[in-house]
């Protein structure tokens, strides 16, 4: 009796300590989740903080006297003359007129506020409208990248302002006058890559990604589904089937860069396919995403109850008819969900594409499956490696675009899983 009571006593005395331990353990769990979620929040905040200015461009709006004499141009329809004419001078003169304190002596400093590509814009506009020659027009041009950086990040220590004090004062004045303005960066969505950050855009990379994803999708979805059907419905229990399954499971865990080595050795060196093209990228990503698609498609097929198969077989359907007419349609939502997730993975993949040469600096928007291209994540990689902060800003903006694509794909997959998948 006394012995038992003392035991109960011991337990009671230890309870406080044990409960404290319990609370501590629980706190560890909460702390762990907090750390993980904090990392997520910091990551997003960092990217958005660095990149939202990438969606803004800085422009100069001024009255340009398109003076033929100054430009050595008397006929704006003459190709030869257009090539030789001076399109910088009218811009410089226009800007000098906008800056009260600037004189002809400051022309070099003024010229450095205008984007080097502005003269090309003027030429193109004049080519479209030859009658503009010898008139005065209000036009908008891109400002120089240094002006862009100054307008967006004047107080920020991380950015080095390359404008002189005089130029800074001018830009401040021009901003007040409404000549220098920041607005939504449509250039970013309409251009390919460029050496000039304010001219650089993601259109080329987005089109490259779309072409690559198209190849990946049309190859990996049918092949993945067919392989899943075979393994779930037709494969006999033998060594070969086991071997296939082991291979698929292992391929799912092989580092993606190994697929890049495979692409380089087989598609480019053995088959002699060109480098940096969406077709090869798509083939490599197909091999990489196939295991994911096969595994999720098999799960979808498995979840179709046997009663469906038995009912179909009972009324005389052949095995293939059972599968194609009954199992496949019922498993389709699950297969599509898995494939969307696989495609999202492929869209974010970078490493294997570096090895097959999709890292080249490509200005033109690719116009076919056999045209040199880059993809969005590789574009991020290229810009992130640049020492210029204006490119880093664009890299963050490109990441935001990439993440928007990925999050919407994943949201679509989750929505489909919730809405279309049947519970049996």
């Amino acid at each position: 009796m006394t012995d038992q009571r003392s035991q109960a006593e011991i337990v009671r005395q230890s309870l406080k300590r044990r409960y404290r331990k319990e609370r501590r353990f629980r706190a560890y769990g909460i702390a762990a989740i907090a750390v993980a979620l904090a990392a997520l929040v910091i990551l997003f905040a960092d990217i958005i903080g660095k990149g939202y200015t990438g969606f803004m461009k800085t422009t100069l709006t001024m009255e340009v006297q398109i003076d033929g004499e100054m430009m050595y141009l008397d006929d704006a329809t003459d190709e030869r003359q257009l090539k030789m004419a001076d399109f910088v001078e009218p811009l410089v003169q226009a800007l000098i007129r906008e800056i009260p304190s600037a004189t002809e002596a400051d022309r070099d400093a003024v010229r450095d506020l205008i984007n080097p590509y502005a003269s090309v814009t003027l030429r193109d506009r004049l080519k479209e409208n030859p009658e503009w020659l010898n008139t005065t027009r209000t036009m908008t041009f891109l400002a120089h990248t240094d002006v862009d950086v100054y307008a967006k990040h004047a107080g920020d220590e991380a950015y080095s302002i390359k404008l002189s004090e005089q130029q800074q004062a001018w830009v401040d004045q021009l901003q007040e006058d409404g000549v220098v303005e920041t607005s939504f960066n449509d250039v970013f969505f309409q251009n390919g890559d460029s050496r000039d950050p304010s001219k650089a855009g993601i259109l080329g990379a987005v089109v490259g990604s779309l072409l690559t994803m198209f190849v990946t999708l049309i190859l990996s979805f049918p092949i993945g589904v067919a392989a899943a059907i075979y393994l779930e419905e037709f494969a006999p229990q033998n060594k070969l089937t086991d071997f296939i399954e082991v291979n698929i499971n292992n391929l799912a865990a092989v580092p993606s860069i190994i697929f890049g080595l495979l692409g380089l050795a087989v598609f480019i060196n053995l088959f002699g396919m060109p480098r940096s093209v969406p077709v090869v990228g798509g083939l490599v990503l197909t091999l990489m995403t196939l295991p994911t698609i096969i595994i999720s498609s098999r799960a979808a097929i498995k979840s179709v109850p046997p009663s469906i198969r038995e009912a179909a077989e009972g009324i005389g359907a052949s095995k293939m008819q059972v599968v194609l007419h009954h199992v496949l349609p019922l498993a389709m939502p699950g297969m599509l969900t898995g494939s969307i997730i696989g495609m999202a993975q492929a869209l974010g993949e970078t490493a294997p594409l570096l090895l097959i040469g999709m890292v080249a600096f490509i200005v033109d928007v690719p116009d076919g499956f056999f045209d040199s291209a880059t993809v969005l994540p590789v574009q991020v990689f290229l810009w992130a490696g640049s020492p210029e902060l204006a490119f880093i800003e664009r890299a963050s903006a490109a990441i935001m675009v990439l993440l928007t694509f990925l999050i919407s794909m994943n949201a679509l997959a989750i929505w489909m899983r919730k809405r279309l998948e049947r519970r049996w």
Partner: protein
Amino acid sequence: MQPANLLLLTLVLAVVAYGLGYARSRALAMPLGGIRHLKSLPFYYGARAALWCGIPALIVLALWAAFQGKVIQMLVIGSLPPEMIPADEGSASLLLSKISNVASGALPPGFVEAPIVEAAERLKALRGQSRMLMSALVISVAVLAGFLGWLRIRPRINAREQVESILKWLFFACAALAILTTLGIIFSVAFETFRFFEKISFVEFFFGTSWSPQTALRADQVAAEGAFGMIPLFTGTLLISAIAMLVAVPVGLLSAIYLSEYANKRVRSIVKPLLEMLAGIPTVVYGFFAALTVAPFISNLAASLGIEASSQSALAAGGVMGIMIIPFVSSLSDDVINAVPQSLRDGSLALGATQSETMKKVIFPAALPGIMGGILLAVSRAIGETMIVVMAAGLAANLTANPLETVTTVTVQIVTLLTGDQEFDSAKTLAAFALGAMLFLATLLLNVIALKIVRKYREQYD
């Protein structure tokens, strides 16, 4: 015709064959008294004709498209004057790119020797001929085979069975692609690795402690011999992976435990997808974050504490990689913890143990093998991770265990050696494949062990 257009044309031809086969089977059935006298439905006769038409043509197309580039290259090289035929593969690829640049107009013909201009002309002609031949061959195969298939439609043949068995073989081929991929990986890395070991000895590669893959640019250069010891790369990879696991394992495991044992359904349904979001973020984004935010932060922090830290520290790359792996560890451990039978939990709680005691003394030991398997899978992922280390870890192959110093990894070296211009025969490029082989073997080994552990453990409670 372009291969893509030819592909479309073949598909159109297959559809036509389907229509013709369908019509013919119906026409043959008419005199017999309707389609019920056919062995199969007209659909299957059509499908059979379409498969007859499409499959051989597509095989021919795929083979031709795959090998034409190489064959044309060999023909062009072979037709050069004998004194210009390159001795090794490196100069061959250089010559070929010159020829194809001339052919595409990127290099004006005036800049190169006359035989190269001729070769470029020949290249253009051969490409045109190859395209013509391919189109002719594919179309004639499609038409001929389709016609044969159409001709052989008889009411007595069981078209359904034939179509189904062809489909089954197609499905099998798709599944067997996994084997082909593995074989492709093995052969592509093994072949180049053997050639690498012809140049560099095993001992140097596996036990050498210095890595600087600079081979001589000119034959008379002596200084830049190049060293190919993989130990610094290996330790660098291990250091970064270890840091990643130090972050990922406690955080991932504890959040999995909290989510599976403590959290209510609502918290779980919010937190779990958020954690999984970490897994969905592309690695290039993590690399960006590590290189431009975390690494400067760490080196500034260290500097303010008076410690010297590299701006490309192993800690930054490893820490961010750890964040990336958290959801991997947590979802695998979550599965394993949930697989532990409820009876163990109930038994322990009934004896008066608190929840944490149940977790620590009963469930965790029971789930340990599965958790270990999950961790091994996570390690294999950390070793093979590329973009974070390419962007945030350095290129300097230091042999160090200091997480504040720069180290380099196997994957970083593969990417650096293989991006940009490369000659295919140098020890430098071959070294990348040798490293790839090591990486493949290491991850394969980890995966096989991990999958075995996980599977064995699952069987215990099934």
